């Protein structure tokens, strides 16, 4: 027979009566950095678990794309000889690095909630942790790719200028904010309808052709003329152009002239605008996520 409740000591808890596991969304994620670190470590070791090549898949994927685009677009379709297209491989590779960061964040982020259902069904924690962790893992994979890019640039006779680092950071900022925003919304949608996971693959295919990576921006200006601003409404296009500004422009014979002819007017304004829009989208994504996240545990089957 249990001892009566009156005979036992009672622990006095110095805490307010509050809803369990209150969640402030991305702020909670930021507050619990140690848990985030563990999840990122897990993702890094888990993303390619049970595969022989392991983390090399992160490089094989963009590398093979690079070779295919270089051979077919550059050499066979003749993009390398296009007007104002010096050093096509660097142009292509710089674009691929930042685009791959985006598509990896988008794809892995979308699968992140389903992939961690074992935890989500049993433990209370900010669910935003998982899309954010996916973005950080992709950012981690970006580091060696960027180093390779820098080495390639140096061997191609690179002259970095004052704007290399700001352009690089602004491009990262755009993709981090936009990638996280899309990962939040699509991971949520993917819990309710698995179709979204498949749709992301199609979208990422379009993204590769929708940015100035395989072809120069001048081609878009030639095709759209005055209306080429429409093309720049895509934040990923702006991020890719900033990457070209940071890396590719410096390996051409006359960087100033290249920047003047190949980059859109007001590149920095477009970049800052894209970053601002991405931050607004992140706030909207958080609001959508908060509205529907309480239905996630019961739909994780």
């Amino acid at each position, binding site marked *: 027979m249990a001892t009566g409740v009156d005979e036992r000591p009672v*622990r006095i808890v110095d805490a307010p009566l509050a809803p369990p596991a209150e969640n402030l969304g991305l702020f909670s994620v930021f507050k619990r950095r140690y848990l985030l670190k563990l999840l990122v470590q897990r993702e890094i070791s888990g993303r390619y678990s049970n595969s022989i090549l392991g983390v090399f898949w992160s490089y094989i994927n963009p590398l093979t794309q690079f070779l295919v685009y270089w051979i077919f677009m550059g050499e066979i379709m003749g993009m390398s000889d296009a007007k104002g297209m010096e050093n096509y491989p660097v142009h292509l590779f710089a674009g691929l690095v930042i685009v791959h960061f985006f598509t990896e964040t988008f794809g892995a982020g979308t699968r992140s909630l389903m992939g961690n259902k074992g935890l989500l069904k049993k433990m209370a924690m900010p669910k935003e942790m998982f899309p954010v962790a996916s973005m950080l893992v992709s950012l981690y994979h970006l580091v060696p790719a960027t180093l390779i890019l820098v080495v390639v640039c140096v061997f191609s006779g690179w002259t970095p200028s004052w704007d290399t680092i700001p352009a690089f950071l602004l491009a990262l900022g755009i993709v981090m904010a936009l990638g996280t925003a899309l990962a939040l919304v699509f991971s949520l949608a993917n819990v309710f309808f698995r179709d979204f996971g498949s749709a992301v693959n199609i979208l990422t295919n379009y993204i590769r052709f929708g940015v100035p990576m395989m072809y120069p921006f001048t081609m878009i200006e030639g095709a759209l003329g005055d209306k080429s601003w429409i093309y720049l409404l895509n934040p990923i296009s702006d991020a890719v152009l900033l990457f070209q500004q940071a890396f590719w422009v410096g390996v051409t014979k006359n960087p100033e002239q290249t920047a003047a002819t190949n980059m859109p007017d007001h590149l920095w304004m477009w970049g800052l605008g894209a970053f601002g829009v991405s931050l607004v989208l992140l706030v909207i994504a958080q609001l959508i996520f908060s509205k529907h996240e309480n239905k996630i545990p019961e739909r994780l089957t």
Partner: protein
Amino acid sequence: MTADSIVVDGVTKNFTLRYHRSIKDITVAKMKGRAVSNTFKALDDVTFTIKQGESVGLMGLNGSGKSTLLKLISGVMRPDQGVVKTRGQIAGLIATGAGFHPQLSGRENIFLNAAIYGLSAEETAEIYDDVVNFAELGDHLNSPVGNYSSGQYSRLGFSVAVHIDSDIFLADEVLAVGDKPFKKKCMEKMEEIRDSGRTVVYVSHAAGSVKRMCDRVICLEKGRLVFDGDVDEGIEYLHYGEDDAKGSVAQRKLDAADSALGAEV
């Protein structure tokens, strides 16, 4: 006068049952005039308050809403209507297993699990040896938990949960999978938690162990709270203790075995 530890006020939780998921299925169902989906109330306007230091047994048949209620108290789910409020740190097991990552080793999962409860790396290192000793998993600790048996899995989960310095301890069917010596150890550990003045919510079908652990019983039936009060009366209400219990012979035997086990350990 002790303070409230858990307040559940007018809580309702609906689940959507989906029969058809794809466009093809939905179209066919619509044409035949069948329902595409329907909702059912897992919990229906449940209200109760648990004081600090109370040990409450949550009972009811399978599907009566016990686990859903624990998920709402632990914060894994949120109610559709009503309010759930708790005071202090919550730890425990929901539906026999902890939230583990199958690809991670037992060791890594201990750190991840503790971090989800809000422990830092140093705090986890402090309890680590106790957790490992209690779980008695030996060399398995370094292999992925995906390879664990269900018994090993819940051993590890229970071991982490009891070593968290929680103010509220939730235990759901913890005795369902472990072997007898481990069940005994679990019961003793839970009594220790109860006797230290922490709030305990214990879900079990074993009348004997509820009698031993709890000083109050709450019964659920199809999502509704049907009984809240004395332990013996609660068990009688559910006919668990009686020999002429309703249900199949097998179920009666199982109940009897459970009761015996609860009384014995």
